[in-house]
């Protein structure tokens, strides 16, 4: 029953609202111009090529790691925001889905500290460091 409401009020992309929606299309659900998807698709290709080139040119150290992370976050952001339409969802959904992964960052911090400690113990007592 709730489906009807959903279908009636699906968010319209601003430009489509005036011009296209009044035309033949019964604009339901997520309606955005195809061009938007093609542009994002192009950017994903560019960003992937960039992250591949980081490896191809053999960059090292903090430059390599920061570039990898930057390209990763940009790609993930584009996919979630545009392809998965999170940019047009109400904040109640966006925050419910996007905030919990922050807990993972806490987990990452804990495990970084833990593995540094493990590494320290291994170097001190068990292994010949390489």
């Amino acid at each position, binding site marked *: *029953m*709730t*489906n*009807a*409401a*959903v*279908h*009636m*009020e*699906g*968010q319209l992309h601003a430009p489509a609202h005036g011009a296209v929606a009044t035309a033949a*299309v019964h*604009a*339901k*659900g*997520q*309606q955005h111009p*195809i061009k938007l*998807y093609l542009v*994002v*698709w192009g950017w*994903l*290709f560019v960003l*992937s090529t960039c*992250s*591949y080139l*980081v*490896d191809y040119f053999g960059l090292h150290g903090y430059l*390599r*790691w920061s570039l*990898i992370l930057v*390209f*990763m976050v940009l790609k*993930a952001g584009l*996919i*979630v925001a545009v*392809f*998965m*339409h999170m940019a047009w*969802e*109400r*904040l*109640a*959904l966006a925050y*419910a*889905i996007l905030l919990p*992964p922050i807990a*993972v960052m806490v*987990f*990452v911090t804990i*495990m*970084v500290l833990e*593995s*540094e400690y*493990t*590494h320290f113990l*291994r*170097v001190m007592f068990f*292994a010949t460091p*390489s």
Partner: protein
Amino acid sequence: MAETVLTHSGQSPARLEGWRGIAADWASDQRAFKNVSWGKAMMWIFLLSDTFIFSCFLLSYMTARMSTTVPWPNPSEVFALNIGGHHIPLILIAIMTFVLISSSGTMAMAVNFGYRKDRVRTAILMLVTAAFGATFVGMQAFEWTKLIMEGVRPWGNPWGAAQFGSSFFMITGFHGTHVTIGVIFLIAIARKVWRGDFDVERRGFFTSRKGYYEIVEITGLYWHFVDLVWVFIFALFYLW
């Protein structure tokens, strides 16, 4: 749509935006996700739980790699291929990345045509997406075969830290399973779209519920998530 009768028509009531909107939506004692159907909300919640699963895999990989005293095999060399006499680092993984991104692009357009009720284009784009996905799985099978032939095992490998194999098979294996399930999911929904189930509101075989083109978007959410996970695997496992 007989079911429309019970709800308000066309015009949606004005809803608060920003933080007041979040408070109002969650405190309304009804449904928190106002303009999202249960199907879409549940897919998002499932994807959130899947995020935690893959996070745990990547975290265990990070912990193993950070705490080992044995050098980690260089992925750039491990996944290099000789193509036409040239030794190209990581090329197979790069191609797999582009294949998966292309599949995400076609999927996004399939969702778009679905909401325009363009049945044929939606079905074709979904099948193209499934074909890209199958290509990806095929390349992954090739990659696994190559590595196993070279002696990579979950308990060891010729180049360095033993945890390389276990991390690799666990992470890419789980991701490949997700892609495979996605391909099956895509083909099943594409068949329904092609047959016009959502135009005539034919009832589902298991659920006896009417389907809507929204299922294309829900399938798309799953598929984009598979691509999203690959973005993280590509960056953290293959490039790091």
